[in-house]
């Protein structure tokens, strides 16, 4: 049985996907429920530093486009359904980043906790958000997709229509820039925590 494995480990069986392709509303809801978290998180991270309602708008727009294009999606094709959905979300977010007028003056809250709380982890989260927001858009997209959504280089290259070498070089530059920023702003928090990868 073909199954679509989501990052969180849940499985969307191929029967549900095929029902969704035929326009079954329950299958649509199942698909949205399965992918709303990674889609929303991806857009939120890519739009770090922008107003929150745009994230929700883009998450909606992503699923609208997914459902409209779903009948033509080839389940046996080279792209996984999850990668395909995240590609749509990424492109919408990057298009949004190219619009100059919606940048906010204040940083978005990190998670449910605010950065002005005096905990070290919250300060780190705020520093990461600020550091990623300062990255150039191409580097930001590569870093978020790799570090937070665990996509491999080939998938990232396909999603962003780049060659593999470009993905690797952009990722390297993004990592160095973010590390330098964090070491400059929250050196204690960086040294004090041993976690390597983000939990997704």
């Amino acid at each position, binding site marked *: 049985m073909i199954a679509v494995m989501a990052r969180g480990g849940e499985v969307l069986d191929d029967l549900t996907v095929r029902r969704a392709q035929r326009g079954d509303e329950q299958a649509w809801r199942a698909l949205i429920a399965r992918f*709303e978290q990674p889609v929303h998180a991806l857009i939120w*991270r890519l739009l770090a530093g922008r107003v929150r309602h745009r994230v929700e708008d883009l998450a909606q727009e992503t699923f609208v486009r997914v*459902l409209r294009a779903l009948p033509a999606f080839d389940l046996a094709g080279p792209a996984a359904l999850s990668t395909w959905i995240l590609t749509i979300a990424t492109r919408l977010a990057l298009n949004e980043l190219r619009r100059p007028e919606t940048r906010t003056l204040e940083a978005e809250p990190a998670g449910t906790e605010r950065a002005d709380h005096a905990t070290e*982890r*919250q300060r*780190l989260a705020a520093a990461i958000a600020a550091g990623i927001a300062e990255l150039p858009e191409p580097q930001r997209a590569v870093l978020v997709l790799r570090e937070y959504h665990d996509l491999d280089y080939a998938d990232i290259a396909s999603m962003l229509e780049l060659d593999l070498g470009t993905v690797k070089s952009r990722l390297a530059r993004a990592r160095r820039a973010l590390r330098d920023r964090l070491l400059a702003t929250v050196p204690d928090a*960086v040294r004090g925590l041993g*976690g390597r990868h983000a939990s997704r």
Partner: protein
Amino acid sequence: MQADDDALAGIDLAAWQPPAPPAGLADAVLARIREPVAVAPVDPRDPASRRAWWIAGTVIAAAATVALVAWTALRAPRSDRGEAGASRALHLALDGTTADLDPGARVRWERDGHRLTAHQSRGTVRWTVADEDTLVIDPGGPGATTTIEAAGASLRVEVQVNLSDVRMLGMTTLTAATVAVVTAAVYQGQVKATSAGQTVAIAPGATVDLRTSAPPQDRAETAPDPPPPTLAVAATATADVKQLEDRLRAADEKIAALTADLAARTVRRDPPPASAENTRPPQRTAPNHPAAPTPDPTEATCARIDVEEWITRAANQYSAGYAKAALFALTKALACKQDVRMYRMAAMYACAARDPATAKQMIDKVPAAFRPALVQRCQTEGIDILRP
């Protein structure tokens, strides 16, 4: 690259977590997917709405009118003209009416509505005239006294020309072609033919000869021999006409080859041994030319044969690409009349017919001054006359 991969080692990137997705995302998405296209309600009493309906109706009526006019214009035959000379069999579609040209035929046509005027200057053309068309063939050109008029008919028209009035103007040789005889064979439909001011209706199956100076003559009245049964069938069975004509043409060519061979044998015949009775010179032998190939019994035939007509027919066949038939026709004429011009033509026809034996015999009868050109002509056909 390893150093870059480790650049974020020790940093808890998971500290930066997004908020939970907004509740009701699925509902919002499905609402957007299913939201109907906003359509303003139409109040039939609204004057603007009624005006829109009137405008729409007018536009539809105008479009229908334009379409009807365009359809009518496209359906009606256009007025046009054209000209075609066939080096090989050629089919012309002239808005419903068709013309099949044999090799050598030449036609110029002009259409004015349903009236199609064709100037068939030479060669054989099979015409199929559409029911709504009227075809007028004037072989002699505009103002000619010989015309054929057909409507919804199928017929074959053969125009034979005389090549005459050869004149030298400076370095240019002008040859005026005049129509000798027009033959119309009707397969079906109504056909009228006019010559010398007299008009006759040609019934299906009949063949009529038209000459400028004589009224139309039924081929059955003028032909000395009755047509073979196959010809009668051909005249009445339209579907088989073309096949029978092809067979007839092949038979003609075969007869031509045999006749040419017979003529060659006759010409090659050695003079009888000298004796007391045969010491006198032959009566019809020219100094530079051998004896006429035709024995005495043919003299009566020669009296009946129109030599010039055979020569003309040979020229027509040659120009139409039927070299063997041309040689056959010229051999007929050569049996009754011999001169340098005819031997030259015979040599040329024989070369074109790829008959080297006849070609060599004919070239031998031609003065030396004319031979190089004929030898060269034969060489173009792959025949080396000079080779023993």
